[in-house]
């Protein structure tokens, strides 16, 4: 399997997801919702199949390039969307996460990677997979929490009840933040093992730290529940911008002359 076969899976996965989403709009009957769930899971399985096959033929975990990590982002976003949909019955959440996942799949479609098996020695470590996996879970959850934050702001404008929304945001931030902390600390432990430094303020590290700090800020805004909810929601929504810079933008910043984290050229 190489990236040449990728388009088939993009179309298969996205059409399954879109079909699943459309079913959710058919008046609520149990049968249709079950079918929708099956379609969404089918899309996840097809994406998962491509990723597994790519992993096997690369002979290394597909975490090295941006395109490879985008696959994981799509994967975790869709899984998390589905879980949240079933756990909290939030239809819009599934819509958001699946559309975002489809967007990532298409970015890769327009911009695929060259197939490259090499993996530099520093990345050949037992820390590599857990470090990247927890980060991706964290990013997916925090991205979702920020979307909830934006929804909260809209609801406040419309003078609607937002207690449920903000409690959900709190929960997801807590979990996402914990994963982000794992990612940061695993990274530090790994760096110590590989290079003898836990933290070097390399641009990618700086931005990962910034992401951690802005969500930390949100958590502390919410410690006292009487505090201004509007401000907290703004912090949460704007955190998304930092998250996006950290995830996609770092490579383009002027401050990134040479970063150990930019592998793809």
């Amino acid at each position, binding site marked *: 399997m*190489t*990236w*040449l076969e*990728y388009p088939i899976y993009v179309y298969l996965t996205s059409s399954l997801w879109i079909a699943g989403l459309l079913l959710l709009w058919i008046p609520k009957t149990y049968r249709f919702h079950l079918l929708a769930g099956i379609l969404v899971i089918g899309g996840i399985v097809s994406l998962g199949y491509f990723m597994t096959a790519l992993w096997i033929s690369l002979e290394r975990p597909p975490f090295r390039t941006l395109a490879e990590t985008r696959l994981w982002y799509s994967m975790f976003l869709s899984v998390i969307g589905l879980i949240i949909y079933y756990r909290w019955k939030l239809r819009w959440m599934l819509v958001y996460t699946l559309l975002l996942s489809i967007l990532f799949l298409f970015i890769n479609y327009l*911009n*695929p*990677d*060259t*197939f*490259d*098996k*090499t993996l*530099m*020695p*520093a990345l*050949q*470590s037992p820390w590599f997979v857990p470090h990247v996996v927890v980060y991706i879970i964290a990013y997916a959850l925090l991205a979702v929490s920020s979307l909830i934050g934006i929804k909260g702001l809209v609801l406040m404008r419309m003078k609607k009840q937002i207690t449920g929304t903000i*409690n959900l945001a*709190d*929960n997801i*931030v*807590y*979990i996402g*933040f*914990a*994963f982000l*902390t*794992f990612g940061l*600390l695993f990274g*530090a*432990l790994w760096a*110590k*093992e*590989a*290079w*003898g430094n*836990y*933290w070097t*303020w390399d*641009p990618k590290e*700086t*931005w990962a*730290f*910034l992401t951690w*700090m*802005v969500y*930390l*800020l949100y958590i*502390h*805004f*919410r*410690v*006292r*529940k009487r*505090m201004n909810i509007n401000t907290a929601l703004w912090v949460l929504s704007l955190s998304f911008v930092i998250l996006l*810079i950290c995830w996609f933008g770092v490579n383009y*910043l*002027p*401050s990134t*002359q040479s970063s150990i984290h930019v592998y793809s050229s």
Partner: protein
Amino acid sequence: MHKKKTIWEFPWKYKESFTIAIALLITGFAIEYFIGKNIIWLPTWPTNLIIIIAFWAYFIFLDRYVKHPIINWLSSTYAAISAISVFTALILLMGFIIQSDKGTPSFISSIGLTHVTSSWPYLITSMYLMIILGFTITRRFFPLRIKNLTFFLNHGGLWLVIAAASLGSADSWKLSMVLNEGEQSNIAGDSRNRNLFEMPFKLELLDFDIEEFPPNLGLLSIKTGKLIIEKGDKLIEVEAGYEDKVGDWNIIVETYYPSAVVDGDKYVVSEVMGSVHAVFIVAENLLSDEKRSGWVTNGSMMYSPEYLILDNDHSIVMTIPTPKKYSSQIKVFYPNGDIEDVFIEVNKPARILDWVIYQVGYDEKMGKWSKSSILEVVRDPWLPVVYVGIFMILAGSLYLVWMGRTKN
């Protein structure tokens, strides 16, 4: 009705907290501007430990015996939010500005923004953060209850990590050692090799070894000097019998020698120094049935690479293999006369006395025939403290995942 509180009237809230935090940041910039950057001095053992103990004595004393609204403010969420915000703002600036003082000095560099992590504004805002965090921990630590445990793990762990990593950095050593095969050495140099130090042990490089990823073949455009590759496709593999289409050509790899030298007009298997990867290729033009064949190699420090010209714009070239693994086999001579063999690889450092030895490089000009190995020797006596802090935060975060935000 209650009267609106004026600023500086207790209890202090956002206005006062942010005024103080921003004033501290500006003070930092001013000190950096007027006094300069070379004044900051990091304390070494045991001064750093004394500073840490003094901090805690101070936190606990004030918390217990001084009843003043400022003490309450120091552990309030308002103060915490102001400290986190200002510190984040400073790091945000750092995220956008190149951290290097190489260019011409400007206003930005004179207020410290080109070397944030060794600047006064950084020192002052992080101290503010640490003091607020310290008071917060002190207040929540008593009474000691299970409910406060996660709070203590997260906040205490963070405090420990930052304190041990920053105050401890003056006690840590990071030196570099270059070993040549067959030579014994106990000399290490600091980052710019300005100062040399004698290590308590002697090292001898027995063997340095590199394993490489196999090279690939690609179609090169002679005009642009770039490889032509369809998006998403892979390069041609070097493997006897491998066949692939690139551009208008069908390429067959007839022979592959991972290690060969030139002999007249052909290549023969040989392991001598400077040997190359060599393939014999047959290329057929799919449109005109033209055929080309010849040897293609990656070259080395002794031989120049060979490529196969297909037409006036295209040729087949071999990529330079990248290292997969490199490692050193080293004999260690301890001061007490003991001798031990150790093996060091990237990601697999070795521990010798209280030093940790990392594989960082080799002689890149010689590539896989390098006879020297570049090592880094690191001593970090505060490391266990940092690890305790890290594991406290990990445990605290696990609890966050488990509970979510279920309280209140």
